[in-house]
C-alpha cells in the first residue's frame, strides 16, 4: 500500500519533471504553442508557409519585437512605457524628413533617428525618476506629446515613397540565406540585450529593482539611475524600430505606428514578462511579437469572416497566456511536491 503510493508519487513527479523540463522556460512553451498553431494553419492554408508570406510577416514582427525588447527592459523595472508608438512614429517621420528635405546621407539619418529615440526615452526617464511621476501617467502624457510633435513636423503632409531615395524600401524584403534582414537584426538585438541582462551588473540590477526596489536600495543599487537607463535604452530601441518602420512602409503619415503600443505591450506580456516587474526575458518578448504577428496573419490567410477577426485574435491571446499559466502552475506544484518529499 505504502509502496504503491510512493510509486504513484514518484511517477507523478517524473511526469512533472518531464513537463518541467519542457516548460522550464515560458519562452519554450510559447514557442511550442506557436509551432503547433502554425502547423494547423499550414494544413488548412498551405500558402501560409510560402516564402513571401513568411518574409512579410516576420519582417513586421521583427520591428515589433525590437520595440518589445525595449519595452521589456522598462517593464522589468516595474514601469511601463505607453509612449513607445509615438516615439516610433516621430523617429520614422523625422528620418524621412531628413532624407527628403535635407539630403542627409542614409546612415547619418538613421543614427540621428536612433539618437532621437534615445533622447525621447531620456525625457520619459527624467519625468519619472527626477519628478517622480508614475510611469503610466508620465508616458500617457508623452504618448500624446510625442505624437503632437509628429503632427507639428508633418504639418498636414505625408511622406511618399517617391520622396525617399530610390529603392529605400527594398531592404524590407531583403533576405540572407532566406532569412529576412529585419529578422537577423531582431535576433541580434535580442541576443545582445538577453546576454547583457543575464551577465552584466546592470542587467541584474534591472531585475533587482523590478522585483523589490527597497531591497535593491538596501544593497546599494541606485534604482532611479537604473530606471532612467532602462527608459533611455527602451527609447533607443523604439528609435531603431522607428527607422525600420520607415523602411518597411515607405509611406509615412503623422499617425504612423498609432496603436502599436498596445501590440508591443501585449507581445511583452504574452512573452512571459511579468507586468509586475522583475521576471521574464527579452527573448520571451520577441517570441511574443512573432506569435501575435503570426496569429494576425493566420486569421486572415484562413479566410475567416472579417467580423470575427478581432474577437478571435483576443481569444487566442487569452488562450496562449492561460495555457502557459496552467503549465507553469503545474510545474511549480510538481517542484513543490518534490521539495516536500
Amino acid at each position, binding site marked *: 500500500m505504502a509502496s504503491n503510493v510512493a510509486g504513484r508519487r514518484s511517477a507523478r513527479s517524473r511526469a512533472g519533471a518531464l513537463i518541467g523540463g519542457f516548460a522550464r522556460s515560458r519562452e519554450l512553451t510559447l514557442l511550442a504553442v506557436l509551432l503547433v498553431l502554425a502547423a494547423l494553419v499550414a494544413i488548412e492554408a498551405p500558402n501560409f508557409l510560402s516564402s513571401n508570406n513568411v518574409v512579410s510577416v516576420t519582417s513586421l514582427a521583427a520591428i515589433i519585437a525590437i520595440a518589445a525588447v525595449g519595452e521589456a527592459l522598462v517593464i522589468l523595472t516595474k514601469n511601463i512605457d505607453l509612449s513607445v508608438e509615438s516615439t516610433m512614429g516621430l523617429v520614422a517621420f523625422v528620418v524621412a524628413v531628413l532624407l527628403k528635405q535635407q539630403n542627409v546621407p542614409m546612415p547619418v539619418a538613421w543614427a540621428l533617428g536612433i539618437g532621437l529615440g534615445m533622447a525621447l526615452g531620456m525625457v520619459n526617464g527624467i519625468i519619472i525618476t527626477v519628478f517622480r511621476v508614475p510611469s503610466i501617467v508620465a508616458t500617457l502624457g508623452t504618448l500624446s506629446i510625442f505624437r503632437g510633435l509628429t503632427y507639428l513636423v508633418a504639418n498636414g*503632409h505625408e511622406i511618399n*515613397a517617391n520622396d525617399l531615395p530610390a529603392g529605400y524600401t527594398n531592404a524590407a*524584403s531583403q533576405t540572407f540565406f532566406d532569412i529576412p534582414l529585419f529578422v537577423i537584426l531582431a535576433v541580434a538585438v535580442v541576443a545582445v540585450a538577453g546576454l547583457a541582462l543575464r551577465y552584466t551588473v546592470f542587467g541584474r540590477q534591472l531585475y533587482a529593482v523590478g522585483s523589490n526596489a527597497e531591497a535593491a536600495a538596501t544593497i546599494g543599487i541606485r534604482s532611479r539611475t537604473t530606471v532612467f537607463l532602462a527608459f533611455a535604452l527602451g527609447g533607443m530601441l523604439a528609435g531603431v524600430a522607428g527607422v525600420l518602420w520607415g523602411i518597411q*512602409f515607405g*509611406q509615412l*503619415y503623422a499617425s*504612423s505606428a498609432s496603436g502599436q503600443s498596445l501590440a508591443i505591450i501585449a507581445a511583452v506580456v504574452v512573452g512571459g514578462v511579468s507586468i509586475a516587474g522583475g521576471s521574464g526575458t527579452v527573448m520571451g518578448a520577441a517570441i511574443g511579437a512573432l506569435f501575435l504577428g503570426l496569429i494576425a496573419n493566420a486569421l486572415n*490567410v484562413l479566410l475567416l469572416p472579417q467580423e470575427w477577426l478581432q474577437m478571435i485574435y483576443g481569444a487566442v491571446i487569452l488562450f496562449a497566456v492561460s495555457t502557459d499559466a496552467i503549465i507553469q502552475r503545474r510545474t511549480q506544484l510538481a517542484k513543490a511536491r518534490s521539495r516536500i518529499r
Partner: protein
Amino acid sequence: MFHRSPRIAAGLALTLILAGCSSTATTAPTTAPTTAPVTAAPVVTPAAATPVAIGSVVMIPKQVNNPYFDVAFKGAQSAATALGGTLTQVGPSAADATQQIPFIQTATTQKASAIIVSADDATAIAPALQAAMAAGIKVVGYDSSPAKGAYNVFVNQADTAGIGKGLVDMACTEAPSCTGEIAVLSAAQTATNQNAWIDAMKTTLSGDAKYANLKLVATVYGDDDPTKSTTQAQALLSAHPNLKVIVAPTTVGIVAAAQVVKAQGKTGKVFVTGLGTPKGMVDFVKGGESPVFALWNVTDLGYLAYAVAVDLINGTIKGTAGEKFTVKFASGSVDYTIGADGVVVLGPPFVFNKDNIDQFVASFGF
C-alpha cells in the same frame, strides 16, 4: 489670468463683427435674404454678433492630418476666402466615430452656423448631428454620408454607381483579358462610402456580361491604417495565389497594397487599382504595380461643400430635391441640382495613368 477674459471676449466680438461685415459685402450678389440686421454699430455681446451673416463654419473630417482631408480643407478655405465666414477644421486623430461625436457636440454648444462633416459611421454620429440641426445649425455632409435625416445636404464626390463602375472598369483594364480573381481592400468595415462603392462594384460585376470573367473572391478591411492595410494585402496574396487585381478604394490601402506587390516581387502578376493620391501613387504607376487608378478633384469637393453650407445659411437653398444653384470655382461656374435625399454630386471621377500623372503630382501637391 482670468481678469483678462472680458477684454478678449470684446476683441473677439469686434473681430466677428468685422468678419461679418466683410463677408456680407462679398455675398451681396447672391441676394442673401439674411434676417440679421447688419450694422457696424457697437454690439454689446459676442452672442449678438453670431447671427450676422455666415459666422463660423466647422469642418469635421473623418480624421485630421490625413492629406486627403487636408486638401479638401484647403478647397473649403479658398471658398471661405471667396464667400466669407470663418472656417475651422477639427476632428479625431484616428478615423473613429466615437471620437468624432464630441467634436460635433462642441460645435453645437459653440453655436457654429454650419457643420461640414465626413461621417466615420453614418448612424453613430446621426443623433449628434440631429441635435445640431435642432439647434438651427446647417449640416453638410461631404466625402462619407451621415445617415439620411442627419444632414441638410450631402455633397457626394461622385455618385456611388459611377465610382463602382469606375473601379470595376479599372480592374478590367488591369486584369489580363479582363479575366481572373479580384479582391477588395477597403478601409473600416463601417465606412459608409466604401461599403456603398463595394456594393456598386458587385452590381456592376453581375450586371454586364463584359465582366463575366472577373471574380470577386474577397473583401478585407485595412481600417485606413498602414500597418493593418499592409498585413491584409499580404494575407490576400497568400490566401489567393491566383489573384490578379487588388481594388483599394482608399488612399492608404492602395499605397499599402502596391507596396506589398512590389516587395513580394509580384509586379506584372498582381495589379493594384482603386482610389489614390497622385503623389502617393506616381512611383507605382510608373513601376507597373498600379497602371491606373482614379480620384476626383478633392479641392473642388471641399470648395463645393463650403459653398453649399453658405447657401444653406443664407437660405438660398434648403436641401430639397430639385433645387438648383451655381458654384463659382476658380476654373469657372458649375450648375448643380440637388437630387433625391438632398444629395449633390460633384462630378465624374478622374482616371490617372502614366501619361497624365506627372502634371497632377504637381497641381494637387498630394
